[in-house]
């Protein structure tokens, strides 16, 4: 990986920083593994992981009516939910890291390119109009109408944004940021308009959707986001060098030999796809995308060779932790994930920022 790091970012303490980066990644991976095991072991029913061998044995033997309930809870409820939480956490944290790096702005979150706003608008349209003019769409896709609409809405918003900011083969980063804010504001106002026209039933759903939740996790959703998980793993390592170049500014990155246009485009596409998929399956989950990369930078420094993988692992771990809390605190009821995320993360983050500053950006 060291060959991908531009010489300029290598400070005097290369060895020290590299060691620290690796330690952070290792620690994040261990934390993630622990969280994943915990996520499979705890829940409202009190079914724990020690029944798993029996369940698998029965599954292979093709019998197992006596472990049917355990199988349902472990393999049909907790496992897809755990995988989805990991995907959502990874997608949002990595996207946040890429956006903050691209815009060199510590306030950039994954939604800055309009994807969350577009997704929310489309999802809310389907929720609010599902009994009216959108009924044919809803009856065609059933319970997946909202996730599909959210994903397509997010993509559409980002494509519009890239379309209007791309001039002569060049995307202006500053224009992209401002146009993103404008598009988000427009989507927000249309959202308000739809909320105004909704009945109380749609309004309740709308509110719950914007609070985010993984309660509807299923294998279908896991399959639907799997390609995006693969996309993150394949694409993101190729963006490390480009994003490190952007730390110095766009012109400097160009002079360092970074293909700036290609980097920008890939970052935008990867972010739009990942955030679109995450929002589609979990609704709006704020905070994670902006906070995890900051937290990681405080530990590793600004080098994306460490920031991106550590963000991916830590984002997944945080999403799992928050989801576990969401599931068990008020069991058998459930808290909205977005709320738990903010309650857990915000105080820790505030403490870190006040103590250490915002490592490496801004």
């Amino acid at each position: 990986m060291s060959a991908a790091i531009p010489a300029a970012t290598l400070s005097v303490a290369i060895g020290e920083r590299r060691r620290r980066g690796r330690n952070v990644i290792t620690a994040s991976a261990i934390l993630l593994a622990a969280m994943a095991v915990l996520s499979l072991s705890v829940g409202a029913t009190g079914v724990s992981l020690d029944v798993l061998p029996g369940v698998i044995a029965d599954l292979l033997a093709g019998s197992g009516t006596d472990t049917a309930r355990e199988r349902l809870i472990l393999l049909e409820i907790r496992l897809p939910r755990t995988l989805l939480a990991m995907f959502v956490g990874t997608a949002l944290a990595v996207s946040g890291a890429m956006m903050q790096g691209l815009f060199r702005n510590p306030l950039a979150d994954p939604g800055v390119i309009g994807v969350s706003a577009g997704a929310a608008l489309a999802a809310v349209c389907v929720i609010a109009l599902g009994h009216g003019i959108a009924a044919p769409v809803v009856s065609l896709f059933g319970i997946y109408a909202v996730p599909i609409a959210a994903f397509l809405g997010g993509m559409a918003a980002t494509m519009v944004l890239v379309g209007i900011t791309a001039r002569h083969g060049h995307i202006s980063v500053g224009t992209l940021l401002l146009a993103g804010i404008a598009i988000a504001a427009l989507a927000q106002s249309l959202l308000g308009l739809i909320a105004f026209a909704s009945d109380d039933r749609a309004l309740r759903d709308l509110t719950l959707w914007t609070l985010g939740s993984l309660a509807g996790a299923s294998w279908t959703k896991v399959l639907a986001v799997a390609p995006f998980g693969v996309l993150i793993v394949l694409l993101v390592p190729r963006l490390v060098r480009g994003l490190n170049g952007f730390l110095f500014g766009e012109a400097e990155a160009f002079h360092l030999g970074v293909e700036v246009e290609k980097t920008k485009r890939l970052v935008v596409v990867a972010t739009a796809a990942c955030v679109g998929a995450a929002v589609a399956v979990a609704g709006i989950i704020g905070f994670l995308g902006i906070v995890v990369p900051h937290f990681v930078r405080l530990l590793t420094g600004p080098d994306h060779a460490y920031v991106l993988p550590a963000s991916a692992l830590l984002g997944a771990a945080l999403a799992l932790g928050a989801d576990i809390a969401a599931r068990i605190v008020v069991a058998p009821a459930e808290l909205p994930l977005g709320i738990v995320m903010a309650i857990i993360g915000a105080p820790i983050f505030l403490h870190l920022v006040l103590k250490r500053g915002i490592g490496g950006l801004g």
Partner: protein
Amino acid sequence: MTPGSNRSAGLLFALSVCLVGVAAMGDRSGAAEQAAGTVADTSRIVSIGGDVTEILYALHAAPKIVAVDTTSTFPGKALKEKKSVGYMRALSTEGVLSTNPTVIIAAADAGPPEVVSALKSSSVPYVEVPDVPTPEGIAEKIRLVAAALGAEEEAKALARDVARDFNALADQRRSITKPVRALFVLSVQNGRAMVAGSGTAADAIFALAGAENAAAQINGYKPLADEAAVELAPDVIVAMQNPVPGNEPRKMLELPLFRSTPAAVNKRLIEMDGNYLLNFGPRAGQAARDLMQALYPTLSRSAKGSGQ
């Protein structure tokens, strides 16, 4: 756009298609097992929806209920003595199953849809109770719940009581010569009133109580423009009881938008328990009767339904 961005757009499109394809292949119906008949084992019931819980209590099935949702506010002890699975639109699959139910009886409004679909495909029978805000709708709710319980005898008695309430109500309604114009105010925020138009439960209960909905030309619950309130000229304002100090319904009459309406001039405000009035359970007939008596204080009180 440039060739580069075309490629990006193509990639995005391919990914979208991929997601849509996988999702569309997925299970659409959730293998909905609509248990229309009797459920074999009703020893552990999860009841979702205020009206469903109310019917179960009225059918003396309370000891069999293991958990209810947070809209099950009547009888008041339901949420105290039973576990809560949370708000009916924000259920959790494992949460509901953790109560070890042998049957789930839920209002059609329960959600989110993915969780309902997962519950339907679990081995626990799932009985869906539609919500139609009419006397016939209530009779159907009772019939469905009773069929699941195998409690036809109790159900007959309950349905008879409910029908008697509605018949008495219909008799009284015929003696109304001049219907009053009533306006249901759901809430007031920043001096702006959210009112119930047509197609709402409040509109349905108004019709049963023999009142004319002053906001009938509005559809659903909508905030009311200041001048429109004057235009609607309600004779009476109906509001939900709200014990929060500073937000009591009687303050509504002092609001500029209502000040010149006949309701405010004659100080006619009716406060009623929101769930009692709007959830269209077995007590809907009584609720409509109480509302009618508050709307028409001079009307004969002779034809009382079965009180509780």
